[in-house]
């Protein structure tokens, strides 16, 4: 079993890395019925290249950040059905972002800060719900209720303020180079911070009391991780928008394939998440050209049947994990 898992694991990592390079090239080179050679750019193509680079880079980081957030949330809450979108994190961040920009100053990064208010609030609510020792299914249902609640609040706000920018389904068509730079900087910082906690991933196989018994203050670690995740969510929502299902599907696929090799969960999750998001952007731009389908919609279409499979099958035969 160990050799089989090892062989499968190496191939999965290599597959994802190669696929990432291919998808990066495809998404930058193809689109809007024009083909650009990114290694030999001439004339007006430079501007097009810059725009495509911006959206591709943002898509890459978005996929990585949402997916890794989903992984850590599933570990902390011991629940394979937890996803930042499904449990209301992205919708609450989006609502508070849209609400606070009405009353407070706008500057570079302000939407991220305002969105963080919402995601922090939601995380607090989720931790409180979890402390009540509810079943995993009930926990997710609570999260769905919160998600619907904030989504509706956001839509009401959009109607009142005639806000065209905000959409339920996020895409990368309006990404500017400045937003790309912001995403690169924040994405690198946040992923670096999250990887510091990668060594604790195997410990989440125990309950919190057992981890404490082993000498690790897991409650403090959970707080740090959840704080970082709240910034991750507000970053993605602030720059791009809301995404659903990615944070539940990618970690479950990775756990299914990597199995007991928990030390690979982090890298495989961010690579696979990036790949799926870039692919979604590519398909959204090119499938029905000149109409562009938001990447979030394409991503949901791809993820929904996979999620259906996991829910029916139940990861490892257990509802909880």
């Amino acid at each position, binding site marked *: 079993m160990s050799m089989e898992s090892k062989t499968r694991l190496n191939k999965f990592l290599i597959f994802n890395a190669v696929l990432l390079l291919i998808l990066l090239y495809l998404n930058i080179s193809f689109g809007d019925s024009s083909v650009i050679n990114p290694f030999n750019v001439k004339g007006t193509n430079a501007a097009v290249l810059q725009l495509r680079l911006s959206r591709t880079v943002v898509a890459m980081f978005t996929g990585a950040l949402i997916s890794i957030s989903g992984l850590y949330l599933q570990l902390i809450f*011991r629940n394979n059905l937890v996803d930042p979108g499904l449990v209301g994190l992205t919708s609450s961040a989006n609502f508070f972002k849209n609400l606070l920009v009405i009353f407070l100053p706008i500057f570079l990064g302000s939407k991220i800060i305002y969105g963080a208010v919402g995601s922090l609030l939601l995380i607090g609510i989720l931790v409180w719900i979890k402390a009540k020792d509810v079943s995993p299914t009930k926990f997710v249902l609570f999260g769905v209720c919160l998600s619907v609640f904030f989504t509706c609040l956001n839509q009401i706000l959009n109607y009142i303020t005639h806000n065209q920018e905000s959409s339920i389904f996020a895409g990368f068509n309006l990404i500017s180079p400045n937003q790309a730079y912001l995403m690169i900087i924040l994405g690198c910082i946040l992923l670096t911070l999250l990887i510091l906690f990668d060594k604790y991933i*195997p410990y989440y*196989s125990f309950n919190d009391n057992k981890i404490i*018994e*082993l*000498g690790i203050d897991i409650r403090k670690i959970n707080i740090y991780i959840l704080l970082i995740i709240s910034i991750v969510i507000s970053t993605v929502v602030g720059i791009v928008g809301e995404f659903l299902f990615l944070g539940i599907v990618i970690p479950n696929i990775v*756990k299914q394939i990597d*199995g*007991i090799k928990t030390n690979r969960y982090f890298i495989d999750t961010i690579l696979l998440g990036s790949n799926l998001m870039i692919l979604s952007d590519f398909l959204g731009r090119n499938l029905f050209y000149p109409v562009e389908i938001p990447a979030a919609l394409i991503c949901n279409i791809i993820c929904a049947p996979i999620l259906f499979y996991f829910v029916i099958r139940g990861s490892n035969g257990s509802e*909880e994990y």
Partner: protein
Amino acid sequence: MEAKNISYSYDEKTVIDNLSIELPNKGITSIIGPNGSGKSTLLKILTGQIKDYEGNVFYNDNNLREISIKNRSSIVAYFNQREKIYGSISVRSILDLSNHHELDYSEYLEYLNLTDKLDIPFNSLSGGQQQVLLIIAVLIESTEYVYLDEPFNNLDPKYKKQVVKLIKDAKNKQSFFIVDHDLDTLAQLSDYVILYNNGSIIKQGITKDIIQKDSLENTFETEFNFNLDNEGNSRIFQTF
């Protein structure tokens, strides 16, 4: 370990009532009592999992509430037969994560005939195998005090015998505190016994003084038979 004036209530029900208890730093102490008498709750208090109790628990004269998480990890280890392991993790990882002192645990696995299970998912094992491995994990934590809550439940006779031997082998280095309903095994294994009911200690002392027919029948409100085995040891049987 010394626990002084411990009281704990839950849902307006007194679970533990002004209890004081001392454990030596070596040997095996068992606590026996009916279901719902508060034994497992007491274990959770003594291991720091329940914090909102009255009274104090001291380890080597240090108050448990003031001992850091890092220091506590070398003092206390706890096994609960209802403990869950989440996700896909290998047996090797479970043991390595518990192995602060990087002990060689291969002898345990060879003795239990589980060496070939090291690199498979823990949750793919049978319930008995999982339980035995979790007990091994607790033993290799090498803490001063080891608390075992129903370690013999779900074990077949062979695993039970092997686990008893491992505990006996370790008792000169560690102090064991065991809660279980297998009175016969506890009577053979323990140096000290605490008879416990309704949140209070009824009697405590060396095993042969406490494991008496009258005491057990009064505590559990059911009949027992005491017979001698081939080696002259007293064996407890419940009659139906």
